[in-house]
């Protein structure tokens, strides 16, 4: 059998994990585990958040190396979990390379496990929960839920216009901050801070910051620095959106 073919499932497994928010060490472990199970020698993998390198030695002694550029998308833990399951099955000898390739292609083409409607609802639940955790009451929770759902719905609309990403983040934080300010000018009982922080929570880079610290503590400096830069950029954009909303509100005399 042509061993060069074995590069494809290894690359696809690494790409799927990295694209969907998996850790760099998981990419490296999965690729090496699958490669060894395929009977390859000297399997090596090096992953950074923007790319995956895979290398192994063929039976004739030649070295096969492949570099893959990865564009990170939204986090999809289901996908990462499924790829991990495939690699375990390969390791256990339940799947050969063709079976692994088919399974990975099926995962790649799988529909989103959380359709947009469910994600909008989840944003609302999430924002309401965090608003209460931050000291808000029932009304604050309701307002945060509405703001969270609206932000997610706007995100979906912007995604359709291919404006997803940084601009969506900026606009989302603008909206999430403006809504509680406006609501407070109508009813003074709203706790702006709790509502805004609750609605902003899905956008805040706290998780990316935590991953950056975890990666750095594990010794993955490149990945740690990359996550940290991403977190700082995200925080800057969220801050920009929130600042713009507060400024617009003040300029309008606090009555919009």
């Amino acid at each position, binding site marked *: 059998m042509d061993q060069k073919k074995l590069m494809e499932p290894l690359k696809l497994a690494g790409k799927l994990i990295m694209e969907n928010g998996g850790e760099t060490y*998981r990419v490296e472990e999965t690729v090496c585990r699958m490669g060894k199970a395929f009977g390859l020698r000297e399997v090596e993998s090096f992953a950074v958040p923007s790319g995956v390198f895979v290398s192994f030695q063929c039976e004739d002694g030649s070295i096969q190396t492949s570099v893959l550029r990865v564009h990170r998308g939204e986090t999809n833990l289901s996908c990462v979990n499924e790829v991990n399951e495939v690699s375990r099955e390969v390791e256990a000898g339940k799947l050969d390379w063709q079976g692994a390739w088919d399974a990975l292609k099926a995962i790649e083409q799988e529909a989103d496990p959380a359709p947009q409607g469910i*994600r909008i609802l989840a944003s609302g639940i999430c924002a309401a929960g965090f608003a209460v955790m931050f000291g808000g009451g029932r009304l604050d929770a309701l307002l945060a839920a509405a703001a969270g759902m609206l932000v997610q719905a706007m995100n979906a609309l912007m995604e359709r216009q291919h404006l997803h990403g940084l601009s969506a983040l900026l606009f989302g934080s603008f909206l999430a901050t403006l809504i509680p300010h406006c609501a407070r000018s109508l009813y003074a009982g709203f706790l702006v801070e709790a509502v805004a922080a609750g609605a902003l929570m899905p956008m805040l880079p706290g998780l990316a910051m935590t991953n950056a*610290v975890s990666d750095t503590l594990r010794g993955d400096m490149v990945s740690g620095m990359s996550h940290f830069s991403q977190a700082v950029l995200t925080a800057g954009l969220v801050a920009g959106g929130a600042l713009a909303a507060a400024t617009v509100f003040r300029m309008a005399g606090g009555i919009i």
Partner: protein
Amino acid sequence: MLRELLIIFLSSFAGTLGFAVLLRAPRRTWIPASLVGALAFSVYWSLNAAGLSEVTSIFCGSMLGSLLGQLLARGMKTIATVFNTLAIVAFVPGLGLYRCMELFARGEMEAGARAGIGAMMSIVMIALGIGVGTFLFRAVFVRHRA
């Protein structure tokens, strides 16, 4: 106190559940992972309310979340990332980061820096809690198997 604890448990459960969907965790893990997140956050809140410092409480809560998460991940044959991530989302200092950004935006640099450092300390404690939880889990599991 009990009523407040119940409110904290339910609200952190809702927050974690929302994140479980947004991060597209496997559906069968939504409820157990949200329970772990809510339990870990409730422990943090109780310790903090009992007088323990903020950072120590966060460390204890995230360590417990990491331990429970990894136990469940093993039981449910899922990657630990799913449970580890969802166990700590409630600890992420969203309010601290928001305050930091707002204070900077208002030009109150000193107060903003203080809020930012506080948030950063929480983040480091979360990461340490996960690290120690993972280490303890592996140590106990390896000893158990040996």
